[in-house]
């Protein structure tokens, strides 16, 4: 299963997917093609379409939630799988084709060199590519300020779901991972637990299928929930 990998150790790509039948196969195949030696684990979050069948067909390990539990739970299930099957590194990749796997080897090698425990792909460190909607950029800018104040580090893209994790970070997050709109909160949790986070520039594509999980009235709910969660997290004290 794992042939040659530049760095020693096994790597797992965790792809949370909820009704992503249009893109899931090409996402899995692109990862397998561009990242030699990686295993792909699709966490089907109770999809009602053919996501599960297509993911299995494309050569991924498929874990299917019996119910739709939300993206945070899906990612956590992926971490649990990675812990149980003793993977050394894991990278989270969205199921809608926004994330180009071509960046994964570079992210992984930062982990392997021990330069960081978590490597997060940021679309704002470099020019070009899809920068997301105006409203979302305002939200991201707001989180940037919040992060500076709370954890003293500049995180330019805290809503990024394109992240690579070292084994200790995987174990830590398999235990406790925020359920809805998890990305900005995870940054705080990890930082408070003493993990080193490093951002690398990536180019994101516009989604190739499906719909954003944040639409309608949800942006407002998103901001309130995330701000509240971040404040609560920073009140909780250190976990590790």
């Amino acid at each position, binding site marked *: 299963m794992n042939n040659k990998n530049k760095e020693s150790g096994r790597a797992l790509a965790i792809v949370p997917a909820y009704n992503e039948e249009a893109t899931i196969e090409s996402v899995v195949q692109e990862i397998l093609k561009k990242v030699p030696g990686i295993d792909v684990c699709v*966490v089907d979050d109770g999809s009602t379409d053919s996501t599960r069948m297509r993911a299995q067909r494309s050569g991924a*390990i*498929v*874990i*299917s*939630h*019996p*119910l739709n*539990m939300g993206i945070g*739970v899906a990612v*956590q*299930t992926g971490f*649990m*799988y990675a812990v*149980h099957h003793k993977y050394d590194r894991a990278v989270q990749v969205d199921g809608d084709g926004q994330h180009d796997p071509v960046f994964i080897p570079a992210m992984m090698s930062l982990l392997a060199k021990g330069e960081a425990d978590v490597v997060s792909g940021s679309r704002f460190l470099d020019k070009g590519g899809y920068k997301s909607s105006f409203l979302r950029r305002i939200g991201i800018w707001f989180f940037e300020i919040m992060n500076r104040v709370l954890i003293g580090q500049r995180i330019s893209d805290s809503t990024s779901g394109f992240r690579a994790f070292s084994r200790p970070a995987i174990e830590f997050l398999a235990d406790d991972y925020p*359920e809805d709109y998890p990305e900005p909160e995870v940054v705080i949790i990890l930082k408070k637990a003493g993990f080193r986070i490093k951002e690398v520039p990536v180019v994101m594509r516009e989604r190739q299928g499906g719909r954003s999980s944040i639409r309608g009235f949800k942006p407002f709910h998103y901001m309130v929930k995330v701000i509240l969660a971040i404040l609560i997290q920073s009140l909780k004290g250190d976990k590790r």
Partner: protein
Amino acid sequence: MKPIQIFVFCASLGLLIIILELVRRGKLKERFALLWLFSAAVLIVFSIWGSLLEILARILGIYYAPSVLLPVVIFFAVILFIYFSVIVSRQSEQLKNLAQKIALLEAELREKTSD
């Protein structure tokens, strides 16, 4: 007894019977029934002992006795809602753990049988 007292007494008794019947049919668990049984009991006490409200009002310094009920009812309702929110949170956590466990076990089972 004033007519209103008889009415309240009958209504409270009705409430008590409905709760007991729900428990008996297994539609309401005993642990949740306790709070409701308690509230029904309190209502019955108030309907029988008419001057209790006035005594309470005098202690609390409230001129119009029936307005004692309002803060008491709101207080109980708020406690109940918080209690239910806690239960809902606990259940969704349990549900999450269960769903993840099933998903992982199923994936493992498939791996084993495909070998």
